[in-house]
C-alpha cells in the first residue's frame, strides 16, 4: 500500500467519524428542544390540566350575578315605591289639614 492510498483511507475514516458526530449532535439537540408551537388555536380540551380553567366557578358566578342583579333591582323598586307612598300619605295629610306647613 502506497503512502498516497494510506492517506486517502485515513481521510475517509475521519470524514465518516465527523459525519457520525454531527448526526449525534443534531439528534441530541433536536431531543433537547421543546416541540414547536402549533399554528393557530389549541383546542381547550387539549391543554395541560394545570392550564385548563375550571368551568363551574364561571357558571356559578354568571348565575349568581344574574340573580343578585334581579333581586337587587326588585329591592330597589320596592324601596322607592315605599318612599313615594310615604311622601304621598304625608302630602295628602297636609292637603286635608288645609295647605302647606
Amino acid at each position, binding site marked *: 500500500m502506497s503512502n498516497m492510498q494510506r492517506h486517502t483511507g485515513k481521510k475517509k475514516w475521519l470524514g465518516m467519524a465527523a459525519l457520525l458526530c454531527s448526526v449525534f449532535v443534531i439528534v441530541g439537540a433536536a431531543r433537547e428542544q421543546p416541540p414547536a408551537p402549533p399554528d393557530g388555536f389549541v383546542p*381547550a380540551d387539549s391543554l395541560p390540566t394545570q392550564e385548563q380553567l375550571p368551568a363551574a366557578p364561571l*357558571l356559578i358566578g*354568571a348565575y349568581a350575578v344574574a340573580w343578585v*342583579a334581579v333581586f337587587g333591582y326588585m329591592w330597589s323598586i320596592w324601596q322607592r315605591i315605599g318612599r313615594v*307612598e310615604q311622601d304621598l300619605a304625608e302630602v295628602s295629610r297636609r*292637603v286635608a289639614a288645609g295647605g*302647606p306647613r
Partner: protein
Amino acid sequence: MKKLFTPLLVIVAAMFAYAPLAIHRAPYESTMGLVQKIFYFHVPSWIVMFGAACICGVASAIFIFARRKSADRVAVAAAELTVLFGLIGLITGPLWGRKAWGVWWQWDARLTSALVMWLIFVAYLLLRKYGGAGSEKLSAVLALFGMANVPFVYWSVNVWRTVHPKTTVVMSLQPAMGRPFLLCSLAFVGLFALMLAARIQLEHRRAELDDLYLSVED
C-alpha cells in the same frame, strides 16, 4: 295589568324554580362543555334587553311626537330595565368567553356595539337624573338612537367577522337544548313584564306626588 300581576308572578316564579333542573338536564355542548350552560341566562337577558330598548324607543317617539306624558313614564321604566338586563348580558358573556375563547373581552363588532348600546341607555338614565328641566325630551331623542342600535347589534355577528357565535345558533338548537332555552326565555320575558309594570307604577305614583305638591303650593 294589576289583575294579571299576581298570576304572572306565580307562573314566572314557578318557571325560575324549574329552570335550574331543566338546565341541569340539558346535554353538554360538545366543544365547550359545562360552561356553555351560561347560554340559558345570557341569551334571554339580551333578548329582553333588545325588547326593553325597543319599548323605550317607541315610547320615547310617542312622547316626542304625541306629547303623552304616560309614554315618557313607560320609556323611563324600559330604559332602566334595558340597563339592568344589558348589565347581566355584559357580565355573563365575558364569564363564558373566558373559558370558551380564552379571553374576557374582545373588541369585535358584536361585543363593542352591544357595549355602546348599553352605554347609550346608561347616558339616558344619567341625563334624566342630572339633566335638569327639559331633559325628558333630550333623553327621548337619545332613546331613539339607542333603539336604532338594536338591529346593528343583532346583525353584527352575521355581517362582520367576530368571535361571537352567529344568530343562527339559536334556531339550530337540538330539542334537548331548545326546550330549556325556551323556558328560560319565557321566564325572562315574564320577569321583564312584571318589573316593567312595577316600575311604571312607581312613575305614576311619582307623577301623582308631583301633582299633589303643586296643588299644595298653589
